[in-house]
């Protein structure tokens, strides 16, 4: 599948934003971050900023962005529509929390609002994952781990961001660093299991099934001389050796390096303002590569008509 930059930016940025919102909500409910504090305001502003940046970027993927509001209507059947509804619904409690924080109003209302924001964040990221996981045509996406990986990566990237914010506010961050480390390890393990799984099982659909004929040898003549939309969108391929190197990059930059930094922070809590930005930057780079690979490695069954043998 063609890795569109708008969709990569959308899923990584909004994933991190919702992850941050999730941890922020939980931390507030646990009584750690009062709304009146500037660190709460900074965190919720960054969370909603990332979410909004992602959502805006996703509209660049549309042919008719001015009609995007119509995507809220089909939540009964479409995960994309559900994602839109969940994203907008999450703005309500999160926006109110931001207002409370902005005006420094400490109210009992902040607890249910924080809880609802965390729930909304989980629901939205789950819908994002299900958009991909619901497509039977792409075996790399139609995998039970896909929505869980989306959740785990959002949680991990949000947690790393919260560590960065705590580092700058000078607040104690050893507990949060440990949580972020756990989230990162969980996400990394899921991702590795997912890669092992999709590598072990080759595509079950063959060119013979696509044509309904036995013994399809090859495509003798394609229908057109140059690639068409279907080939460019669905036929993107990444060389196997290239993919292996990129996977190693993901394991190193998205998981190993930030994981090591978080371990230092969790154990000693020292040098946080220097170390935390390193963790955030490495994780961000690694996750963009991860998301690019998620698209580039995905095989679509329609390519069976264009010479693929199985998908």
């Amino acid at each position, binding site marked *: 599948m063609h890795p569109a930059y708008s969709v990569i930016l959308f899923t990584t940025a909004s994933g991190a934003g919702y992850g941050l919102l999730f941890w922020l909500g939980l931390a507030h409910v646990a009584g750690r971050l009062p709304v009146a504090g500037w660190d709460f305001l900074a965190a919720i502003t960054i969370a909603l900023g990332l979410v909004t940046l992602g959502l805006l970027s996703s509209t660049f993927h549309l042919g008719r962005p001015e009609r995007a509001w119509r*995507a809220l209507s089909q939540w009964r059947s479409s995960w994309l529509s559900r994602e839109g509804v969940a994203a907008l619904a999450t703005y309500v409690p999160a926006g109110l929390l931001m207002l409370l924080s902005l005006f420094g109003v400490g109210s009992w209302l902040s607890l249910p609002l924080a809880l609802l924001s965390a729930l909304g964040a989980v629901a939205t990221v789950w819908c994002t994952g299900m*958009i991909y996981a619901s497509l039977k045509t792409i075996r790399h996406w139609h995998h039970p781990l896909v929505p869980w990986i989306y959740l785990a990566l959002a949680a991990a990237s949000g947690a790393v961001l919260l560590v960065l914010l705590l580092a700058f506010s000078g607040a104690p961050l050893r507990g949060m660093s440990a949580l972020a480390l756990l989230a990162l390890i969980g996400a990394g393990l899921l991702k590795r299991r997912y890669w092992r799984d999709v590598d072990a099982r080759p595509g079950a659909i063959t060119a013979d099934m696509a044509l309904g004929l036995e013994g399809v040898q090859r495509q003798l003549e394609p*229908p057109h001389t140059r690639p068409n939309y279907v080939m460019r969108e669905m036929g993107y391929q990444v060389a196997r050796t290239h993919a292996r190197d990129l996977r190693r990059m993901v394991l190193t930059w998205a998981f190993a390096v930030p994981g090591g930094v978080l371990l230092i922070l969790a154990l000693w809590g020292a040098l946080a303002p220097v170390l935390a930005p390193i963790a955030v930057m490495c994780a961000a780079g690694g996750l963009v590569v991860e998301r690019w690979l998620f698209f580039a490695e995905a095989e679509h069954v329609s390519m069976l008509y264009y010479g693929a043998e199985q998908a």
Partner: protein
Amino acid sequence: MTTLPDHTDKKLGLVIDLDICVGCQACATSCKEWNTGGYSAPLTDHDPYGADPDGAWLNRVHTYEVANEHFTGTVHFPRSCLHCEDAACVTVCPTGASYKRQADGIVLVNPDTCIGCKLCSWACPYGAREYDHDQGVMKKCTLCVDRIYNETLPEEDRTPACVRACPTGARAFGDLGDPESPVSQSVADRGGFDLMAEMGYKPTNKYLPPRKGTDQAPQTQAEPAPATTRSPIEKLFAWADRALSR
């Protein structure tokens, strides 16, 4: 609504005979010609006469080499929307622009509400939907919905443009939900099949398999060899024939 109808009154679709399709592309070009002025208008092209031509087409004709016990040879293979009963392209649509009609089962895109998110093309296993970059909306086969019910056309033209154009009669249009219809009969007689039946989208369009070469060939007796006299002159001619044809 992008939820699918429980049932459709008719199942209008195509039956494509892979035995007699000659791969002439007449169906593809006539589809493009009709639809660039009809329901899907315009079907835009980029750089149509240049080095990198590209454009939205609703029907594509591939050619494959096939070898099995039954048939060995070239198969021309027209590919377009199959108007599936379980159309995933419809249910994934976030706007309701993609829909399946209850009256006749045709799957359509409303070009006025499509946002061009392309998710339907990802959900289609047959690669049947093509995005129109100029219009920013998805295009697909409409089964010539603007011809088949069009009473301003002569009756013989109220059939999809691809069917009307096919010079060999390899394409037939009709109600596949009615077992008595000519299209359903030909599917039953010839062992018509679904594409990727294993994936469970229940396509309406059916394909008929290529026939074995000898199925239709008249059976003729080989002529008996004329009796020879084995005379020396005949042997001489036989030797000359062998020597000259060496």
